[in-house]
């Protein structure tokens, strides 16, 4: 148990081992660990960012959905209004047209009535003349009284 040269030799091997560890063992290991730590931190940050973005996107999506719903309901309301308008318009048109047709028909009927009246008048006058002729055959010379007859026919 005495101090001897072993001490120095042991110190030398200790120095070599320290040098070896400082040079070859620690740096690569530290490098690997720190790189991994950075990767994990980055991954966590990216995850956090993704979560945040997802939140924003879902908020935006619900907003979009809301506006779309509003727009849709506005469009529907407008369409309904328009439909009502069209129906109203059609009703009015139909009414006007009906009235027009009715008026036309009335005028035509009037015309027909007038024509029929005219026809009847002529026929009545002819019948009257014919009757008068028959009555007056002998007394009235057609030739002599034709002017008078024509005048009567015209008056009828």
């Amino acid at each position, binding site marked *: 148990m005495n*101090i*001897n040269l072993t001490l120095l030799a*042991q110190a030398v091997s*200790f120095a070599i081992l320290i040098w070896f560890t*400082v040079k070859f*063992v620690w740096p690569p*290991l530290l490098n690997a660990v720190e790189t*991994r730590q950075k990767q994990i931190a980055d991954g966590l940050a990216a995850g956090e960012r993704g979560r945040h973005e997802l939140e924003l996107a879902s908020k935006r999506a619900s907003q979009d959905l809301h506006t779309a719903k509003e727009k849709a309901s506005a469009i529907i309301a407008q369409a309904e209004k328009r439909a009502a308008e069209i129906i109203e318009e059609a009703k009015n048109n139909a009414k006007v047209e009906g009235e027009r047709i009715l008026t036309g028909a009335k005028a035509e009927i009037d015309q027909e009535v007038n024509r029929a009246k005219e026809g009847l008048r002529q026929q009545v006058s002819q019948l009257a003349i014919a009757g008068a002729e028959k009555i007056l055959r002998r007394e009235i010379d057609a030739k002599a009284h034709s002017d008078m007859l024509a005048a009567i026919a015209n008056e009828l």
Partner: protein
Amino acid sequence: MASEQMTPSSYIEHHLGFNAKPVGDGSFWVLHMDTLVMSAILGVVIFGFLWWVVRGATAGVPGKRQAFVELLMEFIDNQVKSIFHGNRHAFIAPAALTVFVWVLFMNAMDFLPVDIMGKFYHNVLGLDHWRSVPTSDVNATFALALSVWVLMIFFSIKVKGLGGWIHELFCSPFGSNPLVWPANFLFNLIEYVSKPLSHSLRLFGNMYAGEIIFLLLGMWAATGIAGTIFGALLSAGWAIFHILIVVLQAFIFMMLTVVYIAMAHESH
């Protein structure tokens, strides 16, 4: 060994004898081959293993081996981080890793059964005096502690400058009044002497005592059947308890190394 008649003292002496190889005249010029070779083999195997794992280290998903080494590294790094504030990756943390792992494995040689290993060294390798535990050689622990001591002084001078270091030797802890210079210097001198002594002797004492208790239990086992049974039981108990001591002493040695070097970085 068994062929010769052995007395208890010769048994212990035999087991605690170093494989000493004189390389010159005088008692200093001796090398303990067992201490040197065992620690060198352990160093090469362990740090070779670490190097092998680290060379293939990936920043991606680590394998089990790499995860284990990283666990060890993180453990050391956390200890150093709590004590040393500065760029610990440049020197102090890898040095702490070296100290912890090397001392741990040198201590762990204590788990090898003394007599079986003695037989193995004697019969297979032809070595008569060969101690398995390098840290139960005071030269080994003192070498580590003195290296740390040198590093401590080196960093002290590097950080504060030579003048700053000398100033600190004389002006702390009691103040810069010239009247207290001798007291300060004496105080610092005692501190500088006691640090490596306590650092190395703590480890050496624990390991040496552990080995001696194994030897005493081994001697008891040689006395008869009852001694064999109780010796074996107690040896097992002591070995289990020793798991704690081996790791604890390595940890303490590492922590003190870090503390001493960290203290050298701080100005008073």
